[in-house]
C-alpha cells in the first residue's frame, strides 16, 4: 500500500469507533422507534409488530397531547426570551469590561459544573413555605402566614431560566467578543450616539450568538423533564413528562415512541431552520 493510500485511510480508522457508537447507539435506535411507533401495544406479553396508525392517531388528535405540546413550546419560548433579556446586557458587560473580565467568565462557567438537580431544588430553599423569602417577609411583618409560591408554571419557568441563562450569556459573549470595537468607535465618530451605534452596529453583528443561545435555550427547555416535576404543580406537566409516563409508568412503548418522535420532529424543524441560515459552526463555537 502506498503512503498516500495509508494517509487517506488513517482518518477513517480514527473515526470508526466514534462513528460506530453514534450509528449503533443513536441513529439506528432513532430509526427503530420510528418502526416501533407503528406497532401495537398488547395487553400482555410482547407488543405486536406491524403497521398500525393507532398510536399516531392518538398522539396527533387527542387534545390532551396537543395542549401540553403547545404549552411546552410556550414555556420554552418565554424562557428563551427571559434568558435573552437577562443575558444580553450581562454578556455585553463581560465582553467590554477590562479588569474583572476573567473572574466574570470563570463565574459564568461555574454553574455548568454544579449539579442541575441541586440548582433546580435550590429554589425550594428560597421560595418554599419555610424558605428564605417567606421567613424574611414574616420577620419584616409583611405577612403573618407563609404563602406557597412554588409549584406553578412561573416557578417552572424561573427554574428553567436559572438553568439555561449561562448557555445564553456564553453564546452572546462569544459573538460580541468577535466584533471589532473600532466599528462602534467609528459609528460614534461619524455622529451616532452610543445607543445608535449599539443598535445599528453591535447588535446586528451579535445576532448569530443570540440565535445560537436562543436555539440551545429553546431546545433544552422544550425537552426538559426534571424541572416541572420538582418546581411545577400537578397540572404543569411538560411534553417530556408525557413521554416518561407512557414509557416508564404505562409501559406503552408504541405510544411513547410516537410521542418522542413528535417532540423530535418539532424541535428538529427548528434546528434545521437554524442550520439552513446560520450553520452548525456558530453553535459549536459557543459550546466549545
Amino acid at each position, binding site marked *: 500500500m502506498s503512503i498516500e493510500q495509508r494517509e487517506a485511510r488513517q482518518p477513517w480508522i480514527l*473515526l470508526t469507533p466514534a462513528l460506530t457508537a453514534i450509528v449503533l447507539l443513536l441513529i439506528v435506535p432513532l430509526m427503530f422507534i420510528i418502526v416501533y411507533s407503528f406497532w401495537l401495544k398488547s395487553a400482555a406479553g410482547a407488543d405486536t409488530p406491524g403497521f398500525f396508525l393507532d398510536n399516531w392517531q392518538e398522539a396527533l388528535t387527542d387534545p390532551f397531547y396537543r395542549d401540553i405540546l403547545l404549552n411546552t413550546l410556550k414555556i420554552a419560548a418565554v424562557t428563551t426570551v427571559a434568558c435573552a433579556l437577562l443575558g444580553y446586557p450581562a454578556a455585553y458587560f463581560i465582553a467590554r469590561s477590562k479588569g474583572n473580565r476573567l473572574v466574570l467568565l470563570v463565574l459564568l462557567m*461555574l454553574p455548568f459544573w*454544579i449539579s442541575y438537580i441541586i440548582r433546580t431544588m435550590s*429554589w425550594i430553599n428560597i421560595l418554599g413555605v419555610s424558605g428564605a423569602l417567606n421567613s424574611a417577609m414574616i420577620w419584616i411583618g409583611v405577612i403573618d402566614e407563609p404563602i406557597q409560591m412554588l409549584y406553578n408554571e412561573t416557578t417552572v419557568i424561573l427554574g428553567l431560566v436559572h438553568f439555561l441563562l449561562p448557555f445564553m450569556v456564553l453564546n452572546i459573549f462569544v459573538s460580541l467578543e468577535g466584533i471589532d470595537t473600532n466599528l462602534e468607535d467609528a459609528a460614534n465618530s461619524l455622529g451616532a450616539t452610543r445607543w445608535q451605534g449599539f443598535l445599528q452596529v453591535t447588535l446586528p453583528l451579535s445576532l448569530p450568538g443570540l440565535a445560537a443561545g436562543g436555539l440551545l435555550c429553546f431546545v433544552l427547555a422544550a425537552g426538559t423533564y426534571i424541572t416541572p416535576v420538582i418546581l411545577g404543580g400537578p397540572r404543569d406537566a411538560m411534553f417530556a413528562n408525557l413521554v*416518561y409516563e407512557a414509557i416508564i409508568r404505562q409501559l406503552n412503548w408504541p405510544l411513547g415512541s410516537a410521542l418522542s418522535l413528535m417532540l423530535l420532529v418539532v424541535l428538529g424543524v427548528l434546528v434545521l431552520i437554524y442550520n439552513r441560515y446560520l450553520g452548525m459552526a456558530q453553535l459549536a463555537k459557543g459550546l466549545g
Partner: protein
Amino acid sequence: MGWRLIRIYTILVYMFMFLPIAVVVLLSFNANQFGSFPMTGLSTHWFEVLWENDAIMRAFRTSIVLGLMTAVISTVLGVLASLALVRYKVPGRNLITTMLIAPILVPEVVLAVALLLFLNFLDIGKSFTLLLLGHVIFTLPFVILVVQARLVSIKRDVEEAALSLGASPRQTFFAITLPLLMPAVAAGGLFAFTISFDDITGTLFWKPGGIETVPTQIFSMLRNSISPEINALGTVMIVLTVGLPLIGAAIARTLATRSGG
C-alpha cells in the same frame, strides 16, 4: 451613566445565578433541627447524618464508577475522532461533525427512549450496561467539542521535526503527540465525568430498579420534601464538581511551569 446601569444589571444577574446556590451551602451548616430558616447556629450535624446514610453512599459509589468508565470510553473515542477531524482532510467533514454532535441536538428524553427500546429489543434491558452506553453516547459530543478546541492550538511542526529527524510514526506519536495531547485528554475526560455524574433525565430511563446514582437519589428524596440532608449533599457535590477541577487545573499549571512549558 449607561455603563453603570449595565454594571448593576450584571451584578443582579450574577446574584440571580448564585444566591440560591449560596443558600444551599449556608443551610447545610444550619443547626436548626428542621434545617430551615431561621438559622439558629452553625453545625456539621447534617454532614454526619449524610455520612451514615447507606443509600446515599451507595449512590455515590455507583456515580463515581459510572462516571469514570464513561470518561475513559468517551475520551478514547472522542480523542481519536478529534484527531481525524483536526489533522486530516476528511471528505464530508461537515456531515461527520454534525453526526458526531447529534446527541446534543436530539432532546435527551428522545435519545433515552430510543436507546432503551432498541437495546431492549437486542435483549439488553435496563442495566448498568445500558446506563454506561447511554452516558457514553450522551457525553461523546461534549468531549469532541472540547478536545477539538484544544487540538487546534497544537502545532504540527514539532511532530514533523521528529519525523524528519528519523523517528518512526509510532515513536513520534508516543514521544511527541501524546504528551502534547494530554491536556486535551484530561479536559475531555473531566468534562465527560462531570456530565455523567450530573446526568438525571437519561439515567431515570435507563437505570434498573435498585440502582441509584447521586442525582436520582436526590430526586427520589425530593419526592417527600426538602430535607437539610439534601442541602448537605448538595454542598458535597458542589465541592466535588467545582473544587476538584479547580485543584486539577492548578496542579496542571504548576506541572506545566515546572517542565518549562
